């Protein structure tokens, strides 16, 4: 078995009286695509936020490649190699698509702080080429000088993905990458996430859409009311009676 990349141990998080996460244990293994599913309010986003430094768990530990992530500011977690792709596109709406991609590329090159007020952006050929290549990979090159706020929602999601990928993360955290997408866009995103570099990358995916989950995931963890109730391969999860009760059963009846 490959080595464990991200290890979440005994993580608890309460908001007031609400137990958002209780004693969550999860191991993400190098090279796998791990889906976290669960009904609304199960604590999926809270778990992700605890990993990237947006929230600090009440207790427990989050270890990434042997380094403790708890209490580390978000920008350092990013440089440790854990990059999050947001559910609602968190882009730079007033900047061009090109700039939107050059910023994460600069972050990877310059680190958390680097002052270069007298360098010319026009001379940053490497960064520029890298951004343009990434736009082309995602089919966005025709919008390269448009404001990111002006493109369609689906394109924004793709831009968001491109911004995560240009940083060459070791672990990519995807928060509902296909939420709100039309069926053919969803399928295109699935293909994108399976192909090339993206396919080999270690990924954690939070997703509602079972079609996406079963197309992509190597392993699935089911989160319900803040507890991990099952972890296993898609087949194991499908047959797990606890999961059926908590989640899949209801979902299948709806469909």
């Amino acid at each position: 078995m490959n080595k464990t990349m991200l290890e979440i141990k005994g993580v608890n998080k309460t908001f007031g009286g609400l137990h958002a996460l209780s004693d969550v244990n999860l191991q993400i293994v190098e090279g796998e695509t791990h889906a976290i599913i669960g009904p609304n309010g199960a604590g999926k986003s809270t778990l992700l936020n605890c990993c990237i430094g947006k929230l600090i768990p009440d207790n427990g530990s989050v270890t990434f490649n042997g380094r403790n992530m708890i209490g580390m500011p978000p920008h350092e977690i990013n440089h440790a190699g854990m990059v999050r792709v947001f559910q609602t596109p968190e882009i730079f709406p007033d900047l061009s698509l090109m700039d939107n991609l050059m910023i994460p590329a600069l972050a990877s090159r310059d680190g958390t702080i680097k002052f270069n007020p007298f360098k010319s952006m026009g001379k940053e050929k490497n960064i520029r080429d890298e951004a343009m290549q990434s736009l082309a990979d995602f089919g966005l090159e025709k919008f390269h000088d448009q404001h990111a706020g002006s493109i369609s929602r689906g394109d924004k999601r793709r831009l968001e993905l491109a911004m995560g990928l240009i940083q060459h993360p070791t672990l990519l955290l995807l928060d509902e990458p296909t939420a709100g997408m039309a069926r053919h866009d969803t399928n295109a995103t699935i293909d994108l996430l399976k192909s090339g570099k993206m396919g080999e990358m270690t990924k954690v995916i939070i997703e509602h859409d079972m079609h996406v989950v079963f197309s992509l995931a190597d392993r699935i963890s089911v989160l319900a009311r803040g507890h991990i109730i099952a972890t296993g391969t898609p087949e194991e999860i499908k047959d797990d009676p606890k999961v059926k009760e908590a989640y899949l059963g209801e979902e299948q009846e709806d469909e």
Partner: protein
Amino acid sequence: MKNLFKSNAVIMLVFSAVVLTAPIWLDPIGANYPDLLQKFAIFGLFAIGYNILFGLTGYLSFGHAAFLGVGSYTAVWCLKLFTMNVFLGVILATIISGIFALAIGFISLRRSGIYFSILTLAFAQMAYSLAYSVLTPITNGETGLQIAADDPRYLDSMLGITQQSEGIPSTHFFGFDIKSMDGYFGFYFAAVVLIIGFYISLKIFRSPFGLKLRAIKSNQTRMTYTGFNTKPYLLAAFVISGMYAGLAGSIMVAIDPLAGAERMQWTASGEVVLMTILGGVGTLIGPLVGAAVIKYLENIFSALNNSELTNIFSWLPEAIQTATVYIVEPFVGKGWHLTLGSAFMLVVIFLPGGIMEGFDRVKNLFGFGKKKSSSEGEAK
């Protein structure tokens, strides 16, 4: 072609030409006198620097006049203690106001949005009040800090430079009297500093640093998850804009060697915000245009009175002339703020991008080619 018009060298060349020939092309609108031209350059410099903070990062500071004041006091003390050559004062004022900006920015930037604005306002008002009270030995309180004939000027006396004439000596830049050429030397001195300041601003706008600042304005949360520690970037922008303010304050002193606390009042801080918004927030040249418009209104419109208006409208039939003068009068003279206020409201409502957006719209309206419009937009 597009690249040619957008290259730094071309922009700087056009900009320098426009600024240095200002006495010629401002003559027809009655703005060709050194006192006003100097104000254009000084406040233009102030606003260009302020725009690096407000325009790029979106952090609205209401306290930048404090740095202007600090720069002014530093420059006067340099004149008093060291030398009548303004060079030293200008350099020291920039550095010291930068140190002040570092301290105030460090504390104010712990908050963002309206709380940041209030913190900067509080600091500036504190500086203003202190200048009138506790710091009177340094600031000379209400009288204002002035130079005197019997100031020590250690550096000048060490170098054996003695006063040629009795009375208060005049400021000079390596021997060139600032007041020479009927005061135009003062303008050219300020204009050259403005051109240097504009060049630095241009470089910052087009650097990775500038891009990062713009990204902070667009989505600061995302910046932190993209791997940037945003605080040092904001502090750097704050310090740079504070240094510009101090530089502008020292140029004021170089031309007219006195400093008063009223320069630090919150209305002065508000004025630079108005200039930036009126001209165009986040544009290279907008703040300078805004500064020029406001100073023009302040100096020209406020000087108009009833008889001059009657003269201006003398070509109208008498009844209409009287009526027109009656309507226009509240907007000029003491009421020039009414003109400024109306202009400001119109710009904010109809041209959120400021006067620069107006220029762009006019150009698009007449269907100028893209290369032309971009060159003028940035060079004007």
